[in-house]
């Protein structure tokens, strides 16, 4: 009797330990296929709780396109392959190419152009998409597998059409298995020139990407030497395509931060011996004035690579990163925003933390948004025309470059300190651990937009939610026959 009681007690104790664990485990399992529209819970941010169409009725996201009758001004075909290829530096890499190269071809347009890109998947077994990072494209053209389209299967193709309505530096990359495909090189630059062309400054693209731990600028390693005329101004378009932020500084000349994330800085001041942090996924255009005496200038990109602007081909000695920084919160001078962020229609909190638990059955320490782990996070609901204020609080122990698709937001404050410089418009905002940012934007681009961490493995680990417009629905599904895996 005692023995039987003992076994019973022991089994009970074991069940008491295993039961809750098993319950949490099974509760975390994701279905094979689901719609982002059904994920998590709706956060109306204090605005009207309008009906959120669940895949039926309302506006179908596929109808949110550029004018279908307008002919294209810029036509590009991108051929995607998974292969072993050679970088411009000569190094061989296993990864992904577009038109046989990585980075893919730079797409160049003039503001107002209708850009039409045909994406053809020759040999990427998992499928591909192209997301236009930083371009506020129409809802159907965002290139997020399972949200705005199905992944383009091997042998298939997909056409993107959008008007490049703001001059600036952008980039494009796959948003299907994005952590793997972006790291593997399925990306390229998109530059939209103003009209009329300013013409005065020489223009240098500096797209930084790590291939297998090797830092490259436009696929080249070490210093990339670019000829430059003494006394002229050179615009260096820095793109951080990696998962971490990048410090940028200039040795041998003062510089201006002319644009951030594709938006011009208002009245940028000339600075010297200061470093600028470019967020993962973010861009910065530096305007460098070449010294009259013909001496060369080095733009340091993250410490291991850089662009050397040199009239003679000679490279200057590297300089260590200055401890002083360019703080975009107070850089430049104020200008009208075009809307009143102090009278918002909706207020959202995007609190990032992490906690132990299961994600799709895998134990670990997982990211949470507003206390909910993936896929139970909030869906931020807006109506077209709303002024939206969002507070991003990061107490997760790690840095997160937050990227909202389809919109540019203006930074209002950091850690309670109001912005006093030029309007700081971002699509990729580096939020360090312990920091709080307040941002605002106008909901002027109907669609279903993901809002995620651009340290792409973090998105894979669940740091992704979405912003939905009332009445807009998407027929696409995560998983499904197309095997859509946007992260």
């Amino acid at each position: 009797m005692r023995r039987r009681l003992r076994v019973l007690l022991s089994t009970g104790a074991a069940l008491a330990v295993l039961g809750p664990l098993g319950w949490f485990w099974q509760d975390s399992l994701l279905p094979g296929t689901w719609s982002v529209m059904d994920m998590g819970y709706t956060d109306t941010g204090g605005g009207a709780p309008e009906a959120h169409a669940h895949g039926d009725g309302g506006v179908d996201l596929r109808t949110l396109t550029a004018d279908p009758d307008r002919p294209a001004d810029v036509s590009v075909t991108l051929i995607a392959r998974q292969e072993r290829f050679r970088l411009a530096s000569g190094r061989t890499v296993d990864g992904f190419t577009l038109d046989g190269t990585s980075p893919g071809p730079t797409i160049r347009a003039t503001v107002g152009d209708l850009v039409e890109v045909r994406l053809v998947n020759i040999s990427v077994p998992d499928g591909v998409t192209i997301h236009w990072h930083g371009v506020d494209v129409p809802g159907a053209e965002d290139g997020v597998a399972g949200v705005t389209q199905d992944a383009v299967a091997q042998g298939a193709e997909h056409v993107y059409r959008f008007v490049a309505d703001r001059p600036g530096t952008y980039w494009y990359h796959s948003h299907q298995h994005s952590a793997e495909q972006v790291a593997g090189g399925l990306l390229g630059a998109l530059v939209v020139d103003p009209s009329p062309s300013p013409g005065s400054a020489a223009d240098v693209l500096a797209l930084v990407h790590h291939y297998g731990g090797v830092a490259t600028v436009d696929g080249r390693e070490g210093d990339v030497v670019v000829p430059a005329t003494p006394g002229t101004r050179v615009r260096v378009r820095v793109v951080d395509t990696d998962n971490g932020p990048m410090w940028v500084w200039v040795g041998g000349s003062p510089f201006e931060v002319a644009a951030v994330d594709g938006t011009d800085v208002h009245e940028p001041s000339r600075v010297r011996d200061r470093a600028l942090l470019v967020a993962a996924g973010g861009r910065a255009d530096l305007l460098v004035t070449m010294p009259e005496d013909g001496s060369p200038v080095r733009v340091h990109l993250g410490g291991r690579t850089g662009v050397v602007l040199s009239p003679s081909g000679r490279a200057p000695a590297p300089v260590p990163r200055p401890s002083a920084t360019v703080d975009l919160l107070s850089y430049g001078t104020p200008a009208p925003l075009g809307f009143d962020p102090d009278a918002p229609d909706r207020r959202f909190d995007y609190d990032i933390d992490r906690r132990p638990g299961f994600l799709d059955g895998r134990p670990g320490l997982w990211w949470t948004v507003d206390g909910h782990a993936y896929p139970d996070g909030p869906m931020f609901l807006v109506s077209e025309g709303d002024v939206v204020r969002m507070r991003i609080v990061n107490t997760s122990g790690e840095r997160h470059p937050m990227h909202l698709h389809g919109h540019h937001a203006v930074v209002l404050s950091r850690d309670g300190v109001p912005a006093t410089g030029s309007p700081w418009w971002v699509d990729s905002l580096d939020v360090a651990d312990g920091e709080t940012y307040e941002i605002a934007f106008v909901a002027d681009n109907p669609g279903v937009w993901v809002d995620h961490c651009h340290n792409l493995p973090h998105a894979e680990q669940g740091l992704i939610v979405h912003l939905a417009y009332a009445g807009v629905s998407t027929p696409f599904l995560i998983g499904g026959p197309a095997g859509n895996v946007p992260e």
Partner: protein
Amino acid sequence: MRTTYRVLAYLIALEVVVQAAALALAFAGLVHWVDGGGVLDSGVVEGDSDPFPEVIGLIVHGINGGIVVPVLALLLLISSFFARVPRGTVWALVVLGLVVLQVMLGYSLADVPGLGAVHGANALLVFTAAFLAARRARVRRPAADDVAAATADTPV
């Protein structure tokens, strides 16, 4: 079950050794790589590729510490319910508690580097607790008092 308990406890102690070795290997690889001109920045830290082969030490440390050791500690606790090791459950709880603390410290030390020192010291506590737990579950030759105890437990 007693053997299961003992093996699990020794495995946890062994895992502490593996963890220390893996970390030292990774650190040595890092120093060697930096000596050869490697530069460590967030591009490398956040990148998904291995800049030097000894990075495997960090991966092993992460998987072992984040999943394998906690699972072993949990199994030790469950086995303790059946193993009839004197104070076996108490020791299993001590091990599990120290392991939970260790994992939390591990995830927090990028935030508060000082916790790295506590993480290192606590590793030795995990080792000691696991080792002592294992010792409690030694299989002894049947002696008079064991026979008496076994008889007393026989169902009537």
